[in-house]
């Protein structure tokens, strides 16, 4: 196999178990998040409750991070021609460190255990460092060509967002657990960590993926080239300037830059909805509709974030978190998982010379449709739960069921894959 163009090789598709371990671990964090919400007291009354801090990290550093790391190992070779060195070793090390780290960190945040916050944070960041180190080596060896989309560049920019988020997170863990003196007020650093996490890492990754996934898999017109060319660099530049303004305590500048950033994200979500409305596929399936609902939830979440800036009440920031993390990222990620996992199983069987059942035999539509419907119900109940603690408990129970069902559907694919291998 030529080393000049490694990303084009079947042989360089990572072993099935490499991404799969991330995808199967991810829903477990969602189940625990549901339990925290169901059994914790007044978890959603403020973004600062121990339960809310645990919940947000179970979803962001648990569920979302696991899926994103697993998916990146799959997509970086295909889109950017980047070959991970020792893919199985990197996957198992990263997976062990990040899953244990997220478990430790969230336990520490939820129960107020400084040792667990620091230990978990260190493990989590160590996992990210291993992943980023391997990703950097892979990208350095990738062919230096400019393709027809900006996805390869923007995947790289998202990795910068991940590095900044991890660094800020570690500083916060050390401040909380070891009394590290911070150069800025703790709430300011929390805001920076959160913004870099959901936007600099998650948002740019979502956009980079969308540049290829939406036009190609949903057969829509492409994103206007100027838009996709400027979007991620503008977000990254905006985040840097906004962070500096927050550091300098420059109120007007940070509000202006905040508005610019929100406008950029709304424009991405609205444009995605517009392009999807022009799909040539006549039978939009449940994951397609889920992706669209995710864009709507993202826009509503941004509206809540704007309301929070204008009127500082606890419920706005919690509402924004619910809509952006569960509604936006949760919906889009679930939709993508339902496409990625059956395809990987199919690809693995085909490459092994086994006659693979088609995608819909590996994972039939009805359970996917029902689980994604539950996802929307959970979102609605969660929104109500922001205002009524008793409803939040119900949302927790439903959320645990949602993620258990997601896991069950993914396991269904693995079982079908095993059956096909035996025949």
């Amino acid at each position, binding site marked *: 196999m030529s080393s000049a163009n490694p990303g084009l090789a079947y042989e360089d598709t990572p072993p099935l178990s490499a991404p799969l371990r991330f995808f199967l671990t991810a829903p477990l964090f969602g189940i625990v998040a549901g339990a925290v919400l169901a059994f914790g007291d007044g978890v959603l009354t403020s973004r600062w409750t121990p339960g809310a801090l645990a919940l947000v990290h179970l979803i962001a550093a648990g569920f979302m991070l696991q899926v994103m790391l697993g998916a990146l190992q799959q997509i970086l070779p295909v889109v950017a*021609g980047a070959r991970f060195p020792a893919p199985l070793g990197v996957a198992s090390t990263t997976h062990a460190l990040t899953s244990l780290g997220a478990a430790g960190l969230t336990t520490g945040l939820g129960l107020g255990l400084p040792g667990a916050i620091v230990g978990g944070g260190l493990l989590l960041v160590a996992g990210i460092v291993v992943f980023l180190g391997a990703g950097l080596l892979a990208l350095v060896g990738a062919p230096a060509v400019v393709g027809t989309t900006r996805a*390869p560049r923007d995947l790289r920019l998202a990795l910068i967002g991940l590095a900044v988020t991890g660094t800020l997170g570690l500083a916060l863990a050390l401040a909380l657990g070891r009394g590290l003196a911070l150069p800025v007020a703790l709430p300011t650093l929390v805001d920076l960590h959160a913004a870099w996490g959901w936007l600099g890492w998650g948002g740019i990754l979502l956009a980079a993926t969308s540049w290829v996934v939406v036009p190609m898999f949903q057969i829509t017109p492409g994103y206007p080239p100027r838009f996709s060319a400027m979007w991620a660099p503008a977000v990254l530049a905006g985040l840097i300037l906004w962070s500096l303004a927050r550091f300098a305590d420059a109120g007007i500048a940070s509000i202006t830059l905040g508005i610019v950033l929100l406008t950029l994200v709304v424009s991405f979500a609205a444009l995605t909805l517009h392009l999807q409305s022009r799909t040539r596929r006549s039978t939009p399936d449940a994951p397609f509709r889920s992706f669209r609902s995710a864009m709507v939830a993202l826009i509503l979440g941004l509206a809540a974030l704007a309301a929070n800036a204008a009127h500082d009440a606890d419920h706005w920031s919690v509402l924004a978190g619910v809509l952006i993390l569960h509604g936006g990222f949760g919906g889009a990620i679930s939709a993508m998982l339902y496409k990625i996992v059956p395809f990987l199983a199919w690809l693995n069987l085909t490459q092994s010379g086994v006659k693979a059942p*088609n995608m819909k035999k590996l994972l039939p539509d009805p359970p996917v449709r029902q689980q994604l419907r539950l996802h929307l119900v959970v979102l609605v109940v969660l929104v109500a739960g922001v205002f009524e603690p008793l409803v939040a408990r119900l949302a927790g129970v439903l959320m645990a069921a949602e993620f258990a069902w997601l896991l069950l559907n993914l396991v269904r694919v693995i079982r079908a894959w095993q059956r096909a291998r035996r025949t």
Partner: protein
Amino acid sequence: MSTIADLMTQDHRACDHDFARAETLAAKGDWPGATDALAAFSNALNAHFDAEEQQLFPAFEAATGMTQGPTQVMRAEHADMRATLARLQDALAARDGDEFAGEAETLLIMMQQHNMKEENILYPMCDARLGAVSATLCTELSHSLAAEHAT
């Protein structure tokens, strides 16, 4: 001036549109319409594969000396897609809507992950490595695709 990447990417999109039309008609149960649409898609897809296998890949291999590398993998993926297309045609002949939908979904994902590699890596590499040959090849590819689409 059009590049190989532009030309071939546009042809991918044209194939996608033919695919979507066949899928739409089959979902509606319009089997005669779906038969025509799938035939058009099959012609377009095979014309694209043939143009790559007979013109573009040999030129890339000659320019780079890589005969066992990326082009070999692309040829193998073409073979997989041709096999899935055959199953899609069988499902259409049997007027089996569920089987058609499942095979169509599989082919679409297979096709797009293949296209991602070509559009982001292989075609730009062709443009970069083929140098002076690039413009002539582009015209030839354009003729082949146009001629075969017309049949």
